[in-house]
């Protein structure tokens, strides 16, 4: 099928790999949408049509998913996307303050993308790490215990591009590989 989205070979081969895993093609919709969105940042009408064609569906069958699921997007988030958990356990440990600090530091309101497209913040529902709240996810990494105070330092490191090297903020994912190197 025509590659009207100019998807990379890697994404195309991953799509070809995932679709036959399901007894019915339509079941692969979410997985294919994720793969396309990971590359393009969002699923616009052209992408909807392409995915629908790939799965032998109507574009509305894809559109109705994009407009329902919170993580699926019609417009991309910023290049650095910060998710802050809003739900009760994190709120009880100060996540409203965390979100406010990020809004001030990154210069963008939650739910929005900064004018230069660099940052976006999402004040979202439970991220299932409630014991170590407030929980923050930057792109795909989860950071724990980011209260209003540490959020300032955290945001500074993020802006300077030094979050990954920082010893003060080790992500849940990285702490896992540290533990399990052997």
């Amino acid at each position, binding site marked *: 099928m025509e590659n009207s989205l100019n998807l990379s070979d890697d994404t195309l081969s991953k799509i070809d790999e995932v679709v036959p*895993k*399901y*007894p*019915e093609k*339509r*079941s*692969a*919709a*979410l*997985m294919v*949408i*994720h793969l396309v969105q990971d590359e393009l940042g969002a699923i616009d009408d052209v992408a909807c049509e392409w995915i629908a064609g790939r*799965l032998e*569906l109507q574009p509305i*069958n894809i559109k*109705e*998913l994009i407009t*329902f*699921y*919170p*993580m*699926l997007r019609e417009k991309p988030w910023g290049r650095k996307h910060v*998710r802050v958990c*809003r*739900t*009760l*356990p994190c*709120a*009880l*440990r*100060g996540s*409203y*303050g965390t979100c406010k600090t990020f809004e001030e530091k990154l210069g963008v309101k939650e739910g929005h993308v900064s004018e230069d497209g660099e940052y976006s913040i999402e004040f*979202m*529902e*439970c*991220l*299932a*790490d*409630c*014991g*170590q*709240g407030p929980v923050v*996810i930057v792109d*795909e*990494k989860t950071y724990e215990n980011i209260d209003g105070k540490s959020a300032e330092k955290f945001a500074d490191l993020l802006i300077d591009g030094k979050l990954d090297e920082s010893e003060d903020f080790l992500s*849940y*994912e990285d702490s*896992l590989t540290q*533990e*399990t*190197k*052997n």
Partner: protein
Amino acid sequence: MSVSTPKERRIILKHADDPKYSNRIGCYLREGGYENLKKAFSMKPEEVGEEVLKSGVRGRGGAGFPAGMKWKFLDRKSGKPIYLICNADESEPGTFKDRQIMYKDPHQLIEGMMITAFAIGAKQAFIYIRAEFHEGARILEQAISEAKKAGFCGNKILDSEYSCDLVIHRGAGAYICGEETGLIESLEGKRPNPRIKPPFFPAVLGLYQCPTIVNNVETLCNVRHIIEMGGEEFSKIGKPNNTGTRIWCVSGQVMKPGYYEFECGSLTLGQLIFDVCGGLRPGRSLKAVIPGGSSAKVLRADERFSGTLKDGTEFDWGLEDIPLDFDGPMAAGSMSGSGGIIVMDDTVDIVEAMANVNAFYAHESCGQCTPCREGSLWMRKISQRMCSGGAREEDADLLLSVAKQIEGRTICAFGEAAAWPTQSFVTKFKEDFIRKATDAPKERDPKSLQLI
């Protein structure tokens, strides 16, 4: 405390925090991994099911339905293929146990799943994992490919005639996908609008209208241990009708929040909060506890609970005396749900706490049933208005009336999940709601903890 607090008994989380343990198959095999799969394959599938039934293990996802019984309900006469789905959509606020299992010990889940798949004769198995677990999905993919290479999963498992592929399926951030029929719709590539039961009991009309078993991550891990110990032995852990261990996830205002695995019924809520979790912050006192994820009814610190248990014994408990198992929180008028215990101290504005929970349910309602779609939205609006200086004395009763019109009038249990917090918060803390209208300052104290 008159009785000393028991020690954790880690069965599911045995290796979770061992720095020498990894999520790779080599490590799992060194610790005796997949031996129970071999043991299960030496039995007849129905014998495996019998062991699980004997174990009395109840579902760890929230409803607490006996897993062995669920399997018994499978429609085997239809001749349609059978599917197994692991519900790894962990999204009930306050719950973070399945994350620990999947990130730290994924092969335990895969072994439990392949034993289950063999027992129910599944043609294919899926793990429906929430999409925020990016790395979790990658860890499971890696683990599945390792298991396939070693012959524990996929084609001709352990050189037998039985084959079962295991597929990772990622959700996309919707809480309703944790509801098993919503999950099935989602897995079919549709909007996750739950299906009505009857007739759509998954064991009869599930994925692609075929018989389907949906079990929680922790439940499926338990299957592995049931085969290791035998159903009879497993049933001796915990208490009758409350067998095995449970992982309690404690969050909120305690000194040491986290996940703790104990034998069912071996400790009380008070022991968990004040001994295991190190109690509250200095100078604080307990105000309220939500014992089973945010949809469970809130318990008030000075409440008393009395009545007669199923076995006939009479009880008269304070909040701290509630035994932590399935039946204890239930007897206290709430539920143990998914094991997520949210602790609130006296600095919490109870109306704000409820408003926070209401905002969650309003955001997550799938919108299929009118009472839930409209009701959850109005409960959010009313409670938010109350917290921004516009509270009226009659709001408490108004909230109760909206909640009452949701409960029991929806296709799935989300309606109850959305209504119970409001019903319990308003009824048990009515004076806080009235005070909000009469005494509360119109402006928030900037130093106070903001929850909405």
